[in-house]
């Protein structure tokens, strides 16, 4: 088992032993020994990104589409600081990854050496945990610990900072054992008495709703199966957060659509009027709750989460259950089955009410035969990709919300988007990571023309590794969500939200040796999308859409779930937002 090797070789050995097949990175002075070790082997394949932020997002896409812990390798100083946005994104959205950073030799640490930065200091608040390894004897333990910490409990990013002399030093490598960390043991099983109490509350519910989040997907496919089983057994309605999409099939009649600021009318109204809320793996984020003192006022709340600090953080809940979603759901299904009763007639009344809300058709929009409506573009994209093995990533903004509303997800791990941090520039590198993990799948980055320019350089990566990702740009020439808020809150003064000099995206694609497609007519959209899907190369699709379209429904700032604005009320929005609401974003 134990084997003598250099620190750099240990890194590769540990990656291989942890099941890492692909690592995303960018070389530099302080990681050269590791890149040298990489050169001498074939177990771990390296993807050379064009910017370290891209490396982390690619790893995020890889991790979220596979459920595995992904790996990143960057150099010291700017390599590490460039990775910070990606690490913060991964922390906010609970994405498991290990980021190995090079560091200047130990004797130079603190000397302001070339490409030195305090990596562990800088990344401490944006990682789940981090390490500076000063002795090669600690390296194998730390590497295995890092993978364990990243992937267990509530997942998150872990940084391992390795000085160059430690990479050169020789030591004894050992393989991972079952519990690589001496103290860290997240609680997986929920308290059975509390789960029994939860089932009791659910049995007596008259207006129940499931509110589920990314935690269900992070917990694994078993959690998804159990959630579906429980929802069907109970007959309750279910809504999900942005990150929770796909855990429950969007085609199912019990599905209410996404909730929150741009969620459906029926989802938000059900949340507002429910008497029992069953929150599983979600964290009552401010985009979900709206005005806190008017959030689901008459409800009893059950909250299942693996992270105790998510419980009672924003919203006081009545029944907290700390545990892994899959474990708790398993107990819930078993207990519900054990005492299966005929459904409460009250549930019928509740569904009748929900059907009335559905009747508002809150996602309706006015289509046009002259100009492509962004919603229409997503609908056609969805129609063209149905039945295919498809993965969707997005950037951040209006297009992201439209994608969440109009692309229907049937399975988990198919939807990669930056929720917590809201990182523009996430989608393309994430798509690169997803395509690397699923070479035969159709991977589409639904993008905006502003976001895509933030990490456009990763197109070069996609071309180099023959990753045929499709970038579907809803091009409205504005930072659309910024423009929408300026229209609604700042008197239509479009301060700096219009992009004067956009590139010609078709030529840009060609410059990268990819394929460019432009479409600005609704009648030509289907054929153009078909072409995009069939081209076996990376594609930039410049879909020119209505620049004035706003994203509805919308809960305006300072308002509650039952005060949402629908698209046909667009003219009166200005009046609907309070002065206090204007300070919110």
């Amino acid at each position, binding site marked *: 088992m134990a084997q003598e090797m250099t620190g750099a070789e240990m890194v590769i050995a540990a990656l291989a032993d942890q099941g890492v097949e692909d690592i995303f990175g960018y070389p530099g002075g302080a990681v050269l020994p590791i890149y040298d070790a990489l050169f001498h082997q074939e177990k771990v394949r390296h993807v050379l990104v064009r910017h370290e932020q891209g490396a982390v997002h690619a790893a995020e896409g890889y991790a979220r589409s596979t459920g595995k812990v992904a790996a990143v390798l960057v150099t010291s100083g700017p390599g590490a600081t460039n990775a910070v946005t990606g690490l913060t994104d991964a922390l906010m959205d609970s994405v498991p990854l290990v980021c190995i950073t090079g560091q200047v030799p130990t004797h130079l640490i603190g000397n302001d050496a070339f490409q030195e930065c305090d990596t562990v200091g800088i990344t401490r608040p944006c990682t789940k945990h981090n390490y500076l390894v000063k002795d090669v004897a600690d390296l194998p333990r730390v590497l295995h610990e890092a993978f364990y910490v990243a992937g267990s409990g509530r997942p998150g990013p872990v940084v391992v900072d390795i000085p160059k002399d430690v990479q050169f030093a020789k030591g004894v490598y050992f393989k991972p054992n079952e519990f690589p960390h001496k103290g860290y043991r997240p609680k997986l099983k929920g308290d059975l008495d509390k789960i029994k109490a939860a089932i009791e509350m659910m049995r007596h519910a008259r207006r129940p709703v499931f509110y589920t989040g990314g935690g269900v997907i992070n917990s694994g496919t078993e959690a998804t199966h159990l959630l579906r089983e429980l929802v069907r057994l109970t007959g309750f309605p279910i809504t999900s957060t942005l990150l929770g999409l796909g855990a429950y099939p969007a085609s199912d009649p019990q599905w209410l659509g996404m909730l929150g600021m741009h969620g459906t009318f029926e989802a938000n109204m059900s949340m507002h009027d429910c008497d029992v809320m069953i929150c599983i793996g979600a964290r009552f984020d401010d985009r979900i709750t709206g*005005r*806190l003192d008017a959030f689901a006022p008459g409800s009893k709340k059950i909250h299942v989460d693996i992270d105790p600090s998510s419980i009672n953080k*924003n919203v006081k809940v009545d029944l907290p259950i700390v545990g892994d979603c899959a474990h708790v759901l398993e107990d819930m299904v078993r207990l519900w089955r054990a005492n299966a009763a005929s459904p409460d007639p009250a549930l019928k009344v509740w569904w009748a009410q929900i059907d009335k809300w559905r009747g508002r058709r809150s996602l309706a929009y006015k289509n046009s035969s002259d100009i492509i409506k962004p919603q229409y573009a997503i609908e056609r994209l969805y129609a063209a990709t149905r039945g295919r093995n498809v993965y969707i990533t997005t950037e951040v903004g209006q297009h992201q919300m439209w994608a969440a509303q109009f692309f229907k997800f049937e399975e988990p791990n198919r939807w990669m988007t930056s929720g917590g941090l809201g990182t523009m520039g996430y989608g393309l590198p994430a798509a690169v990571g997803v395509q690397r993990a699923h070479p035969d799948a159709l991977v589409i980055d639904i993008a905006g023309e502003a976001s895509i320019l933030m990490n456009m350089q990763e197109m070069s990566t996609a071309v180099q590794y023959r990753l045929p990702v499709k970038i579907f740009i809803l091009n409205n020439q504005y930072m659309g969500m910024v423009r929408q808020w300026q229209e609604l809150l700042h008197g239509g003064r479009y301060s700096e939200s219009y992009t004067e000099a956009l590139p010609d995206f078709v030529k840009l694609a060609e410059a990268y040796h990819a394929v460019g497609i432009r479409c600005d007519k609704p009648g030509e959209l289907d054929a153009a999308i078909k072409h995009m899907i069939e081209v076996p190369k990376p594609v930039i699709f410049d879909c020119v859409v209505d620049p004035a379209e706003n994203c509805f429904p919308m809960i305006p700032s300072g308002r509650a779930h039952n005060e949402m604005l629908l698209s046909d009320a667009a003219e009166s929005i200005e009046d609907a937002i309070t002065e206090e609401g204007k300070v919110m974003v």
Partner: protein
Amino acid sequence: MSNASVSHYPAATVSQHVEQHTLCVLVDNEPGVLARVIGLFSGRGYNIDSLTVSETEHEKHLSRITIVTRGTPMVIEQIKNQLERIVPIHRVIDMTVAGPALQRELAMVKVRGKGEARMEALRLADAFRARVIDATTESFVFEITGATDKIDSFINLMLPVGLVEVARTGVVAIGRGSEGM
């Protein structure tokens, strides 16, 4: 709708009752662990009234951090949960609610004066069971241990007598009775 509480974000907790709690935190004695704890408090806007840290179990590499903090009950619960989330933290005990506990700190108090002031300083020190640990013809350094309010009142009494300087350790706490933490 000009109500100031109308907000998209959680309402401010100012109207809620603020409590002071003493937390004992058992951590791995490794580099950066104190920075994690302090970073958590500053990053999330929690208060630190007092903080002490020292290795307590050398062979197990364990240190004990004692933090006196204040916040609403919801914030105190958050602080505990957030602390427990830090990987090298083993346990967090809220000494304020865990049962009867002893809380002590140590202070060294330098006082300067001549004649009657000097005598008065000694008399007060005697009343507070403070020890003289350094003396010159015109100054004393007293060592005093006790609960925070006892030390506060000793320092307040020394002010008019000729207080020069104070060094305090901050609070350490331990539960009463035979049980360990």
